[in-house]
Each structure stands twice: as C-alpha cells, then as structure tokens.
C-alpha cells in the first residue's frame, strides 16, 4: 500500500523567519529563565533576558516571554496594552483565577507552564505569532467591512432623499449620484454624504 499526500506548500513563513525574531525574556534568572533563554537560543532567535520587567521596551522587540507571577505590578506593563504591541507569551507558575485573570488582561497569546521544558517553547512561540497575526488580519478586515457598510448606508440614504425630493425611481437616483461623482471626480460615497448633509441643513431650516 502506498499513499500520496497532496504536494504540500513548503515551510510556512512563520517558521522561516524565527531566526530574525528579537525576543525579550522577562524572567528572573532562575532555572526556568535559563532553560527558556537557552532553548530560544537553540531555536536561533535573538534573545535578551531582563528582570525586573521593563516599563518601556527596547526598539524592535517582536515577542516577549513574561514571568506572570503573584505580585507582578501591572502598572509597569503599559507596553502590553498599546496598539502595536509585541507578541506576549506568559510563563506561569500558578493557574489560579488571579494569575489566569492577569494573563488575560495582559493579552497573552500563549502560555508556558513552569517548570519550563525545552519541548514546547517553539510551538508556543509560533502559535502565539499565528494568533496575533490572525487577530490583526481579522481586525483589519472588520474595519474595512465597517467602512463599506457605512458607505452603503450613506448611498442608500442619499438615494431615498433624491427619490423623495425629485420624485424619481431608485435607479435614476443612483445614476444621478454616479454622474455627479464622475463629473466632480469624487467617490459616490462622498457625493452621497454631501446630499445627506445638505438635506439635513435644509430639513433643519424647514423645521424652524
């Protein structure tokens, strides 16, 4: 019996660029901290170890492995809540609600349990990057959809204004908006917005 697998795409990019990653290990210099630093070095990342946690991060850090323990001062970790934050992997010694809650608030994308073993570090790092990348893509997509939805609503509003005020059908109303957009070299959405705004001003005037 032989089996033929579909010819697979070659190595995923998330694995290919592991060696260019700048990784910060914010962990006390104990057995776990050393195991983590050594394993990340074996994987080939550019590793820097620091403790206590830094209030601001050095330039260009891609990922942070952070010892999340009782007594960790969240106020020193403002960097974890910014827009363009590095990927965070939490290294935990407890999994009680206090610590898990802290892990969630910090926005960690993966967790490594203590005692840290070399096995699992690579998978945690790659998975955390994948989750972060997917989230970023998804929120970009959502923003785009929201903008598109808004634009559709504006055009619909403008159309109904034109239909009402000029007594024309929907197709003609849209044609009118489109012609205006063409001749003024603006988008249909911008024209629609002008119509809606103008109508609001007029409506306000009438109601006085």
């Amino acid at each position, binding site marked *: 019996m032989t089996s033929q697998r579909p010819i697979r795409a070659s190595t995923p990019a998330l694995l290919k660029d592991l060696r260019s990653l700048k990784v910060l290990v914010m962990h006390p210099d104990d057995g776990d901290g050393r195991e983590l630093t050594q*394993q990340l070095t074996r994987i*080939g990342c550019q590793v820097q170890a620091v403790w206590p946690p830094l209030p601001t991060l050095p330039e260009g850090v891609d990922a942070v492995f952070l010892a999340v323990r009782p007594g960790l001062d969240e106020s020193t970790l403002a960097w974890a809540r910014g827009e363009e934050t590095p990927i965070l992997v939490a290294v935990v010694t407890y999994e009680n609600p206090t610590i898990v809650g802290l892990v969630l608030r910090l926005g960690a994308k993966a967790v490594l349990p203590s005692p840290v073993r070399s*096995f699992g570090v690579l998978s945690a790092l790659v998975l955390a990057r994948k989750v972060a990348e997917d989230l970023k893509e998804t929120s970009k997509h959502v923003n785009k959809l929201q903008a598109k939805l808004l634009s559709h609503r504006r055009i619909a509003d403008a159309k109904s204004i034109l239909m009402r005020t000029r007594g024309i059908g929907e197709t003609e109303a849209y044609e009118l908006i489109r012609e205006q957009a063409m001749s003024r070299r603006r988008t249909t959405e911008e024209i629609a917005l002008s119509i809606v705004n103008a109508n609001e001003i007029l409506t306000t005037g009438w109601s006085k």
Partner: protein
Amino acid sequence: MANVDPVKVGVLFSETGTTSTIGLSQLKGTLLAIEEVNEAGGINGRELVPVCLDPQSNPLVYTQLASRLILEEGVNVIFGCYMSSSRKAVVPVIEKWNKLLFYPTLYEGFEFSNNLIYTGAAPNQNSVQLAEFMTNHFGARIFLIGSDYIYPYESNRIMTDLVLQKSGAAKLGEHYVELAATEADFGPIMKEIRDQRPDFIFSTVVGNATASLYRAYAEAGFDPKTMPIASLTTSEAEVHQMGADVAEGHFTSAPYFQSIDSDANRRCLARFQRRFGSDCVPNQCWEAAYFQVHMFANAMREVGSDEIAELMPHVLTQEFNAPQGRVRIDPRNHHTCLYPRIGRANSEGQFTIVREAKRAVHPDPYLVTYSLGDWTAELDMLP
C-alpha cells in the same frame, strides 16, 4: 578503598523486527566499545556490564524495556534507539527518572532534552550537503519516496526547500510506503517515475524496505548514471542486503563510511571483524553507537560517577578520535560535531567517497531554513 563494583549500563537496540539490521549493528558496535573499555581496565578498575534487551522495533516495547532497565536493573545510562518513534517512546521514561540516553542515529532535528546526547547527524550535517551535490551533478527535478513516519516527512520538507532554490527545480512526486513495504509496493511508483523522468530520486525509505526499493528500481531498468537514488539512510548494511550490483552508482550522505582512509577506522574495523565476524555490516549508525560508548566511558573516568547530574558536565566537554575523525559534543545543544561526506556505492558493496568535510560541522538541530551554498555545506572534492 577503591570502588570496584561493576557498572551496569542499559543497551536498547532492536534485534528483531523491521529495523533489526541497523539495530543489530548498533548493538554490536556498542558491545565492541564496551569490551574495549573493559580491556583497558574498565572505568577506573570498574567493569562495564551491558544489560541488553530487544525492543523488537516496537515503540511500546521500547517504553516498557526502558522502564525495566531503570527500575529493575538500576541503570543510570542507556545506549539505544533507532527510529524517532522509538526515541520519543523512551525520552519520557528517561526524563521521569532523570537518567541519561545516548542516541546514535541520524534524525530530523527539532529536539533537545537535558537527558539526551545525540551522536548521529542532524539535517544540517547530511541533507544540505546531499542537496548541493545532487542538484549540481544531476539537476533539481526531484522525486521523493519515504517510509510513512516523521523522519521522512521532515527530511522531505528540508530537501524540497533546498532543491526549490535552484532554477528549473520541480517536485514531481512524493510517496510514502509502509515500513514493511515489499518490492511489489514500489511497482506503481516506478511506473510514475518512468513517466515523470526526474533528475534524481530522494529516498528516505528505512529498514528492510530499503532493499526492496533499490531492487524495484533495478527491475524497472533505470540507470543510476542518469537518474540515481540519493539517500541519507542507505548504508553499507542495506547495500549488503540488496547486493552490491543493485546498489552500485547510487549516492548516500553520511558522516561515516567503512571506506574512510584513516588508521583509527581501519583498526576499529579489524577489531570488529575479529570479534564479531563479517555477518554484521558496519555503517554510520554502528560507528555512532561505537564512539558514544567511549565518550561516556572517558567522561565517567573523569568524574567517577554515572549519575547524570555529576556525569553530564563531563560528557559535554568530550572529544574522541572516532573512525570518522575527531568528534566532539556541542554543549549548547547536546548534539555532536561530525564530518559530512557523500559516498557513491561501488561494485564491492562499499562507498567511494566523492566529497568530504575537512573540518567537523557543528550540529544545528533547530535550523528551519536552509540555503544552498552555506559554508557548512561546502565539501572538499577528493582528488
């Protein structure tokens, strides 16, 4: 009072089952080294006593026997394992009891354990060199055949990444066969090869199925001069099984071949033949099994203990004049600095070495992206 108690060590190689050919050679390589250690006065006067168990090429039995060696025989050190599945079956047991495993087999990389020493080649010590050689001499249109398990999948990923860096490269097929595959299983694949006409075939078939693949190739009437099989695992032992005439002209990348022209190698082969006759065929896994025992023994002579906490720092600084050259452990990743070589099977059932590294190449078991033309991949052409 000097301690004269014997030192029991565990030996876990398959003497039966699908990977028994290499398993038996690793067992005998281990036993030869243990006898040499004892003839030289043992470990500071203490005799090394091997406890050999046969895991029958079965991962479940590997787990059971590793436990037995540790819990019933009381060993602190085990020499053993061939396929990755057997190593993965033993590692949890070794780690649980904090013992030490010496693993003398090439494998796919991406592993590190504080309880392991890896003495076979990592992919940066055999795959890169093979890809470079084969694509330069034959072309980059490749056809992949492997046994159906993790080592072939990962080796094929690496080989594909490497080969696809060349212009005109193509992957024309990728097939996986059962470990117990026979010549008939390779028939349809040979038909496909006839249609596809690759520049070379990359084989990661292991165990006793290797001979069937090469025989099926010969049956199909293909010519190794124009479309050879390139392998990381086809050693003198597999060549012996299939016959020199079937293997002739095909290529293998490995740190050790019997044909290495050195006194250390010739003397070791002569001692082996005197002790074990010529039934068992020395190969790269045999050599790693042999030299790792000497590295262990030298480390234990320095510290006087085989407890991992005391022994490991001494193991990590070991160097040894192995048959392949002077090897040493890389303390950062517990793998071994080795000498990549490319051999072409000849009519005597041996390999004519056509490329070899002058300096030992450091192991890099976590290398994801390989590039052709790395300095580590460059091998010196032999005159």
